[in-house]
Structures are given as C-alpha cells and as structure tokens.
C-alpha cells in the first residue's frame, strides 16, 4: 500500500517551479506520476472590484509567455459584456496581430524549445542537447529564425502599440486605425514570415521527419494518449485561432459538441486532487473517472494536436497541403501521438503565416472606424486559442462596469491531466528499460515539452538551471531521490 506523503512546493513568484512526482511499485516500476504546477486563483480574486476595461492590460501580465492571448481574450470578454459589435477594420487588425503571435510563438517552440527533440538525436550528450546544439547543426536556420521573429515582433509592436504588453485592444474594437504607410511596413515583415513557413515545411520533410529516432517517437505506443480534443473552428470547420465555434471531438473521432464557444465553460467541471493546486477540468457529461484515457473518460486536451483533431480542413492552401501529409502519415483520425504536437504546430504555423499574409492585404485593414458602440455592462465570455490551447476569460460586470466575478481557464489547466498521463507513460517505459536517471528525465521532459506548457516550469534545452525537478518515491512513500539538472 502506498502512503500519500506529498509536499506541495510553496508558490513563490509567478515564474514558479514545477515538480513531477514518480511513485514506484514494489518491483521498481513506475506506478504513478503526478505533475504539480502553480495556480492562478489568487489573481482572479485580486481582479474583483476593478474596472473591467483594465483587464486587457492586467491579465496580459499573468505570465510572460502569452500576453497577446490574454490581451485579446480579455477584450473579447468585454466585447461580449458590453454587447459591442466590432467594426471590420478592428477585426482585421486583431486577427492580423493574433495570427502573427501564433506564428511567432510556434516558431519559437519548434526551434528553441521543442527543437532539440525534433532536430537532435536522443543520445546527443546533454551539454549539446539544447538549442545551442541545434545551432551547431543548423547554423543558417537559427539566424534566419531570429531575423524573421524580430520582424514578427515588430508587427506586434506596430499594431499592439507597445514592444511589450499590447495596449491596442479595447471593448468594442481597437484604439487606432492602420494607415497605408504602416500597412506597407507590416506587409514586408509578413512576407518574410510566409517564406520562412514554407521553407520550414521543406526542411521538416527533408531533414527532420526521415530521422529514425523521430519516427520511433511518433509511432511510440507509450506516447499515445486516447483523450478527447477541444478547439475553435470557423464555419468550414477549419482552425481559427482568434474566433469561432467551439468543437469537441471524442478520442474515437465522434463529434461531442459544436456550438457557441461561450457555452464551453458550461460543459466542463473541475476535479481537485490533494497533491496539487491545479484542478483538473473534464467534460461534465462523462463524469470524473480518474486520470485515465479512453472513450468513457471526460479528459480532453487542447493545443495544436487537439485543434487539428477537431478540424476537418485547414483555412489556407499551404497549410491544407501539409495537413493532408500529416494525416496520411498517421493514417487515422484523431491523431493520438503525443509527439505529433510538434508537427501540428508546424501545420498551424503555416496557416498563421498565410492568414497574416491575406489579412495584411485586406482592404478593411486601413478602415478608419475601429470601435463599435457599447451597451450597458453585464456578463461576458471571451474565448480564444492561445498557442497552447483554448483560453477562456469570463467576467461579470456591475452597472458601473466594475468586476463582480472573474474566471480564467488557461490552456495548461485543460491539459494538466493529459500532461500528467503522458509523463507517467513515458516514465513507465523508461523505468522498464532500467533508466532511472538521465534518460528517464529526458523522456519525461520530452513528453512535457510536447505540450509547451505556458508556465515557467516548462522544461527547456537552454544552458542553465532547469526549473523542473523529478522526485522518485518508493512504494511505501519513502523519498528515494531527486532527478534534476
């Protein structure tokens, strides 16, 4: 019998640490794995009583990874709370901004964060198995990525109004129109984005996918997770990062829900466990059956893999082409391979770049009317696809526009259960092979990294201290060792 002796790390600052706990069975195999990450409830309570229109600038400071997502999710919640209709010029600005963010963020992850998993052999020495090792292997690629990302950051600054922490989105629209001169400058940066996206696809198929190590990961039975998928889709059932209907598809490919995204929060409930601050969302209609997958479980995932599972097609031509190659490779829908997250990220990056290219040429972009009329304040829900998955902002405003209630459900919260399950499966496989140190840590980190969690406890391949630790406990709960860098 296993004792539950678990110490939860104190939450320090917002860049808190993460911990994975592994419990061994009597034979030394991994019986269970749990992921502990910080929570944000205190932040929500802090916001009550404040003016609603402050929220786009407050929530974007929740963490330093997705300010763009929180900024626009918040603005959308306020659009809804004030019953505002967004002028076309404002919608195009917001979508151009947002697709640029998705492109930029996915590119960062593909090269810098998840890149070593894709681009380097698993047996590469640990001091080389980081982004610097990637640079040695692919020097010109790294430089070009930095240049194009710098251009993408300029797009975000030019539209968002600041180099860091955008200020442009307001209830009902945006703060300023885009003139023709600015449009031309934006177009130049966006052109470089689309070129790099196309070249990244070629690079992936010529250099990355043929690697036997990656093939093994993509086909690995330990790295398959049969959970449902959630994401936003447009009227053609293609992914739309900024706006759309919410679609939920079962792990067997059946549609569970397609409808108003604002109803999403009514479909989920949260389950508490004593060993973590995070609550585990699950689909209410299925009930809670533990951290298990399968068609009867209520667990679901979000993010690139999930978005491609709920989509019937992509919204842009080159992305559609790559989507078809992706589906051909896996040969089944939905795709359940955890490491397919990386490839799905590439497909989405292509769509984001192509969408930005279309939007920067959209005739409405330079429209002068950028803010709609506001009605009396009330309840509002904003739903958006952050790079890491579906993000909900729910507000209730009083008659004076002050916040009475705030509820934020971030992408990594949705994925908390699946992340833990993936980590457990990979740890069990590594333990079966007798690897309880470096290789175990590698495998656990790889599973974790595929989801690109939006918290500071995400693992990384950069030189320096790793903020994620793995603690191993015996079957009686006795602490055995800590594995970390």
């Amino acid at each position, binding site marked *: 019998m296993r004792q539950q002796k678990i110490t939860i790390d104190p939450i320090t600052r917002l860049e808190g640490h993460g911990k994975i706990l592994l419990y061994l069975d009597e034979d030394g195999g991994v019986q269970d794995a749990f992921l502990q990450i910080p929570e944000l409830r205190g932040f929500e*309570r802090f916001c009550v009583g404040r003016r609603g229109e402050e929220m786009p600038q407050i929530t974007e400071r929740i963490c330093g990874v997705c300010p763009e997502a929180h900024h626009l999710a918040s603005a959308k919640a306020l659009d809804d709370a004030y019953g505002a209709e967004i002028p076309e010029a404002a919608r195009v600005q917001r979508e151009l901004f947002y697709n640029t963010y998705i492109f930029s963020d996915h590119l960062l992850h593909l090269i810098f964060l998840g890149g070593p998993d894709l681009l380097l052999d698993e047996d590469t020495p640990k001091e080389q198995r980081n982004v610097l090792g990637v640079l040695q292997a692919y020097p010109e690629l790294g430089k070009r990525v930095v240049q194009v990302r710098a251009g993408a950051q300029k797009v975000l600054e030019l539209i968002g109004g600041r180099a860091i922490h955008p200020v442009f989105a307001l209830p009902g629209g945006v703060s300023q129109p885009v003139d023709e001169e600015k449009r031309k400058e934006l177009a130049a*940066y966006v052109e470089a984005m689309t070129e790099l996206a196309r070249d990244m696809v070629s690079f992936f198929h010529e250099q990355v996918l043929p690697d036997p190590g990656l093939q093994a990961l993509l086909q690995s039975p330990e790295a398959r997770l049969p959970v449902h998928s959630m994401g936003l889709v447009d009227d053609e059932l293609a992914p739309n990062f900024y706006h759309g209907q919410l679609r939920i598809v079962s792990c067997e490919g059946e549609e569970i829900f397609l409808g108003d995204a604002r109803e999403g929060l009514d479909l989920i409930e949260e389950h508490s466990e004593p060993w973590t601050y995070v609550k585990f969302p699950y689909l209410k209609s299925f009930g809670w059956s533990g951290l298990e997958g399968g068609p009867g479980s209520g667990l679901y995932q979000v993010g690139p893999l999930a978005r491609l599972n709920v989509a019937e097609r992509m919204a842009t031509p080159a992305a559609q082409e790559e989507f078809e190659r992706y589906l051909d490779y896996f040969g089944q829908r939905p795709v359940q391979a955890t490491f397919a997250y990386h490839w799905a990220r590439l497909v989405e990056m292509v769509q984001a770049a192509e969408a930005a290219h279309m939007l920067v040429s959209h005739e409405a972009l330079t429209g002068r009317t950028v803010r709609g009329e506001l009605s009396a304040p009330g309840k509002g829900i904003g739903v958006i696809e952050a790079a890491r998955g579906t993000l909900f902002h729910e507000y209730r405003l009083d008659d004076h526009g002050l916040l009475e209630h705030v509820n934020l459900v971030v992408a990594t919260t949705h994925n908390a259960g699946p992340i833990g399950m993936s980590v457990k499966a990979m740890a069990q496989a590594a333990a079966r092979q007798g690897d309880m140190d470096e290789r175990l840590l590698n495998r656990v980190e790889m599973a974790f990294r595929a989801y690109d969690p939006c918290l500071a406890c995400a693992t990384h391949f950069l030189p320096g201290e790793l903020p994620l630790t793995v603690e191993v406990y015996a079957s009686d709960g006795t602490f055995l060792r800590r594995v970390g860098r």
Partner: protein
Amino acid sequence: MERSFGASVADTAVVGQGNPYCTDDGVGVAVARRLPSDVGENCAVWEAAQSGVYLAEKLLGFSRVLIIDGTPSLPPGEICVRPLREWEAVGGDRRGAHGMSLSQALEMLERLTSQSSSDTTAQSNCDATPSAHPKERSVGACLRRSGGACLRRSGEARSRRAGLENDQVRIPEVWALAVGIPPDPPFGEGLSPRVAAAVEAAVEEVRGWLNS
C-alpha cells in the same frame, strides 16, 4: 520614449521588469513609471513582465539596456547596480518562462546570429566539407532554393527597423539595477514601505547610469 504609440528607434532602453499586480514584484515597473518623459536622450522606457528569450529578442538593436527588477536576494529596499552577468552569477536573476535567464538568452541570440550572413559562404561551406554533418549540407541546399534570397530581400531598411543591421544583430550591453524585496510577494497593487522608500533612490541611480 517608447511610451508613444509606434515603433521604437531609441539607442538605449530602460526596462522596468516585474508584475505591478504582484505588489513588490512590481518595483521595477514602479521605478520605470517614475522616470520623466525626457529621462535620457534617445532612450526608450519599457515595462516588462517577461524575461528570458521573450525579452531578449525585444532588446536586439539597442546598444545599452538597464533592467530594473526586484529581487529577494537583497534586503528589502537595498539597491545594487552591476552588469547583468555579474548579477546573475550571484543568483540574482529572474528566471523567465522556460527557466532561461536574460543573459543566457542574449548569449543564445548572439551565437545564433554570429554565423555567416552570406548565402555563398554557406553554400561553399556545405559543399566543401564532405565531413560536415549530413543534415547541415542539406539545410544549405534547402536554403539555396529560397532562403538565401529571403535573407537578401530582408534588406537593410527593414532589418534596422527590426533591430538588425546588415543581417547582423546588435546585442546590447546589459546592466541590472536590483531592488531588494521580501520573498513571495502576494497579488495586489502597491509596494511595501521599505521597498517604496527605495524608489526615488533607484530613479537617481537610473539617471546616473544614463549619464555614465
């Protein structure tokens, strides 16, 4: 100053780092907000709740940067100004998302962009070194088909606006102005008394650094 709407063309940046909705964690932002609009010639003043690679990329193109941040490594209210690397060496850094310090991120970007910018050079290197990693040779081939042209088309004008010059990236000299804060600041606004009392002195340190 960056506070205006639009792209920055400043040479120097002062970055108030931290979360102003997390009490003393926001002391860096508080100091930045106290700076007058004409604090320095050609100087941008920013607020950032980001660090690591996310912040590092935005600093490309500046020649000098001062990061103002709170740290529990100093007694509350104490101030220290030193080069960022020295500060990080004594454990005073803020680990950004994904656990990378700012100087590590800048080093990474410097190494990323210190490779040859010439497509011809890349090509000759790939062809002339049969012992090179096979993946490297093929990347060169892939880039020859399209990527090199894209690098040239990036152009000087666009590169400078994006913080890049002549396909090279300018990595700034970075200093840290650290203000001691208590550990584990809770959510909320406002600074604790000892930290608040240090803000004006920190503002004077910023002026001194800008004039140095």
